[in-house]
């Protein structure tokens, strides 16, 4: 085993139309690699932990850029950078949850090139997996993190199924909270999948984190107007305040009328392989005031069914605390 850090030789395709990109992606199937900002690409390839025959660079596809207002909300091109999302006036005004999440991703340098599509499609950050070990997620037959001695501080407390990695995305939970729709183009046409269904856990597909299959291209993200100007809460707790992945994050969208929570979508990040909707909390707070009393009333509802590993019990109180903060309406 040796350390590699040089890009391997591979074909480079730079299509300028989605249909061309789909054609190339189909041609190479699972040996093709779609790249946008490249923040979850070059590491894999340079490390030789994963390989591909062809790199399909999507950055030349203009139709996948831009943030546009639609009849029912907004549409964000897949290639829109996280910095653009963080600074976009429309998003900041109406869907501040997403801009708040985007600005917490990694570092300014990464946000400047990293795209929304890349952020939601990125692979898990389990250090064993990223090392290139042949674990379950890599198609192997064991997990190195979920063992009596595994170093699993950052791993899942819910819904682990052999693999215990968590979703590293900050914007993913926010999009689930906003009931975003993911627009996927492929040779068989376009399909639209809810953000909630976009992410898949290891129980369903242990080697993928999303429904995207070879030949699929996530071309846009649509956010419906339903949650425009709702009350939002986002907080990401990570070891470091920049250039880090969440230990736990919480995204919440709440429709509050006269101080009462009429409807809410509360989603935790980094506690399982997919963004975790806290439906029990959502139901418990429906019709209640957004205040300290309601925050206290949910207690440890969020973490109730958690199954922590050796080193990640802290995620349970941390998750409960973030839920309280969201419901309290203030830090």
């Amino acid at each position: 085993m040796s350390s590699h850090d040089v890009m391997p030789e591979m074909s480079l395709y730079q299509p300028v139309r989605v249909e061309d990109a789909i054609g190339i992606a189909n041609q190479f199937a699972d040996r093709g690699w779609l790249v946008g900002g490249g923040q979850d690409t070059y590491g894999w390839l340079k490390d030789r932990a994963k390989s591909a025959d062809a790199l399909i660079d999507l950055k030349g596809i203009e139709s996948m850029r831009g943030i546009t207002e639609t009849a029912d909300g907004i549409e964000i091109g897949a290639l829109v950078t996280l910095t653009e999302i963080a600074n976009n006036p429309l998003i900041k005004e109406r869907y501040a949850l997403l801009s708040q999440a985007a600005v917490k991703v990694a570092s300014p340098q990464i946000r400047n090139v990293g795209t929304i599509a890349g952020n939601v499609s990125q692979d898990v950050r389990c250090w064993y997996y990223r090392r290139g070990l042949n674990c379950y997620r890599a198609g192997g037959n064991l997990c190195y993190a979920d063992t009596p001695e595994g170093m699993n501080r950052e791993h899942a407390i819910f819904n682990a199924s052999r693999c215990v990695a968590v979703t590293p995305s900050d914007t993913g939970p926010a999009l689930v909270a906003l009931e975003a729709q993911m627009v996927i183009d492929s040779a068989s046409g376009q399909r639209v999948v809810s953000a909630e269904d976009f992410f898949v856990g290891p129980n369903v597909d242990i080697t993928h984190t999303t429904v995207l299959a070879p030949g699929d291209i996530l071309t846009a993200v649509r956010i419906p107007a339903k949650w425009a100007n709702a009350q939002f809460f986002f907080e990401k707790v990570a070891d470091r305040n920049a250039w880090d992945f969440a230990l736990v994050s919480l995204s919440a969208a709440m429709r509050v009328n006269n101080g009462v929570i009429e409807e809410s979508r509360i989603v935790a990040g980094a506690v399982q392989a997919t963004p975790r909707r806290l439906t029990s909390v959502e139901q418990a707070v429906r019709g209640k005031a957004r205040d300290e009393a309601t925050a206290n009333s949910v207690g440890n509802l969020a973490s109730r069914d958690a199954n922590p590993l050796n080193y990640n019990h802290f995620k349970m109180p941390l998750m409960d605390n973030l839920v309280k903060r969201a419901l309290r309406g203030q830090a």
Partner: protein
Amino acid sequence: MTYMHIGKDFTPPDVEGKVTGAARYAEDFKKDGMVFARMLTSPIPAGRVVNIDASAALAMPGVVGIFTADDLPPSAPPANPALAKEYVTYIGQPILAVAAESDLIAEEALAKIVVEYQRRPFVVDPLDTLTEGGPDPYPMGNTLIRNSGEAAAGTTASGTDVGRIKWSIDQVTAFRNGREPTGAEFGSEWEYGDVAARFAECTTVIEEPFVTIGQPHHSLESRTSMAYWENGKCYFHGSLQSHTVGHDVLAGMLEIDPANLVFINENTGGGFGSKIFPYPNMAITGRFARQLNRPVQLRITRAEEFFIGSARSGMQGWIKIGLKDTGRVGAVDVIIVNDAGSGGGGSGGSSAEHISIMFQPEAMRFRGVSMYTNTTPRGAQRGPGQNEMAAVLAPMMDKAANMAGIDRVAFRRINAPRADGKIGERQGGLSSSYMPESIDKAAQMFNWEEKIAKPRQISATKVRGIGVGQGFHTAGSNGYDGLIRIAPDGTIYLHTGVGNLGTYSYAGITRAAAEALQCNWDNCVIVHGNEALNLPHSTYQGGSNTMFTETRSSHVAALDIIEKMKEIAMAEFGGTIDDYSIGGERVFLTSDSSKGMSYGEAAQKAIEMGGKYSGMEYPDNIHRTTQRSVQAMQGTGLIGVAKDTLPREGAVPGMAIAFVEIELDTETGKFDITDYSAVAECGTVVHPQGLSQAMNGGGVWGFGMAAYERHVYDPQNGLPANVGLYQSKPPTYLDVPVTMNTAGMDLPDPQSPVGAKGIGEPAQGCAVAALMSAFTDALDGHLFNRTPVTADMIVNHIAQNGHNTGNLKTNTF
């Protein structure tokens, strides 16, 4: 004292290159015909290489050669070999290097090499190997023992062997549970004073366990090097903290006459203790280049830098502290088990030294043992021993002071070393100490009295923590050479063999020469970074010693050149040497300043006079590196060269004290540093901006050590988690305060001609200690007994869920 240059800001000449990107590091140098060498590293934590089949790789177009342990002189454990064969002792250990026409070909060639290994048992926790029946990291044992043997050729280790120390299960269990392991065997022990008697006099006694992890150095510049041979000489571009002090060592590693080595190292992107002297893989570069007869760049990747770039030695320990009713520390008894990784040594003795100087206990006992593990080799890292001890000691001392009812700052002032302070086992003296004054100054800057009186509860979810901590490191050496040349055009060339590791000290120390020469700084040129430019034998750049040591060297060279100028003037104008003065870059008769000459004219005269004036002759006591440099400059100007023989006695203590105020979020475990104030007891401040940089940089790293940095090994298979900077988690710009208030005590050390002492290492020690102290203060006196204290641990503590790691482990948390 009013100085012309000392204490004034200036712009070191490398700043512009650093800002513009023009500065060149070892990896930036290329040479016609250069090939790229890459290393194959071990996938197993312990074992031996049985066979290497490189035939497929060597058959690849563009592959030019392979270099294995067989191409190096044999080495014996625990020396850290450049390439392993019989003793593979950690994952990531280099096994061989392959050279090719391109980096990519070299990487592809690595994948075609088949290495057959025989595995051995391994261990990553020092206490596991210390336990009777536990696995040993080497077949022959688990600890370093000293002997009188010769160093293995091609290595930097000497006089060491691998022995075995074991504790009974009961002793290890007691130690893991925070109790003294009665009757246990240690590798080193010392004691001064009557410890038992002093404890008996104490009214407050605490016993605590502690553990610290061993952070990697994560130097931004990995240790890539490039070498080529021309006319029998090796030209070597490398990355060292020090420069000329490593010359002979590197020549030894290449088995060549030192005269045939030219070491070039203009800039170094961090070393932090891991690059003080030439390190093993440099032997590969030079020898491989000679073997192939082509320039070779051995490029070290980021992951490899984590494998071979060294790390701090983590420690597991137990301490007993006794306070008298006066607040004086009566006695300390400390046990430290160090994690030495697969090579190197622990710093337990230095940790104990920190306690001995910072709190001046009347009696003290230290017992330590340094255990090898199958993890990355350990080495010096900024304040090795002292700083990790500072980290865990500060909250424990706070606890003791609080139990005794003494204000924490007052407690530190009572016990602080004064000029008559003592240090360590032998209770040697100090060159100077203004620590009480520094404590007062920092407390005033921080407004301690007002802050300590503030309520701790800020809101329902935020608490305040006020912390104080101290750092120390011996900060001075002596005996190195100074070298100055004045050209006939009047330019003053200040030669230094000090490495440019990014602290600007290489430039700062030359200010002492300019000060003595009373010259215009604009007429000075600092000559450094390339031995072809004729550099003197200068100090190692480690242990915060540069400022003290090299201001002395610069000063004596300046005195020499001044004396020579006066003699030259005397030859022209008569009189005695005492009749002459210098000023305005002239040497002149004190009684008649019109009778004199400029420095440039003196240089011209020197060339004409020859002898010692133009470097034709030089003192016998200067190092041969300096001799060669003088020889190369013969007849080019006036040469000032001298070895520092100025008097020196006692340890030179660099010290610092810091205060931290934090606001801790009890729901997330996150915190903000709302105030950071620190004072350096560094003697006279030579370069205020340089000091500020040292204190800020050290402070940031201290915060990282206290709360962020990780060094994780998977105990089930010996895998290191740290193979990239984001896994290592050094603090970012958003994790540290925007403003850090720092100052120097600015009182002179009498043994430095300009009063200067070093400060690099204590700058980190005081910061980590203060932040650890603040955590404890914020959490009602709770002791974590470890560093780092990360957000998850704080959340666990507040939730009282019992899931903070209780056992002492250095490689995990």
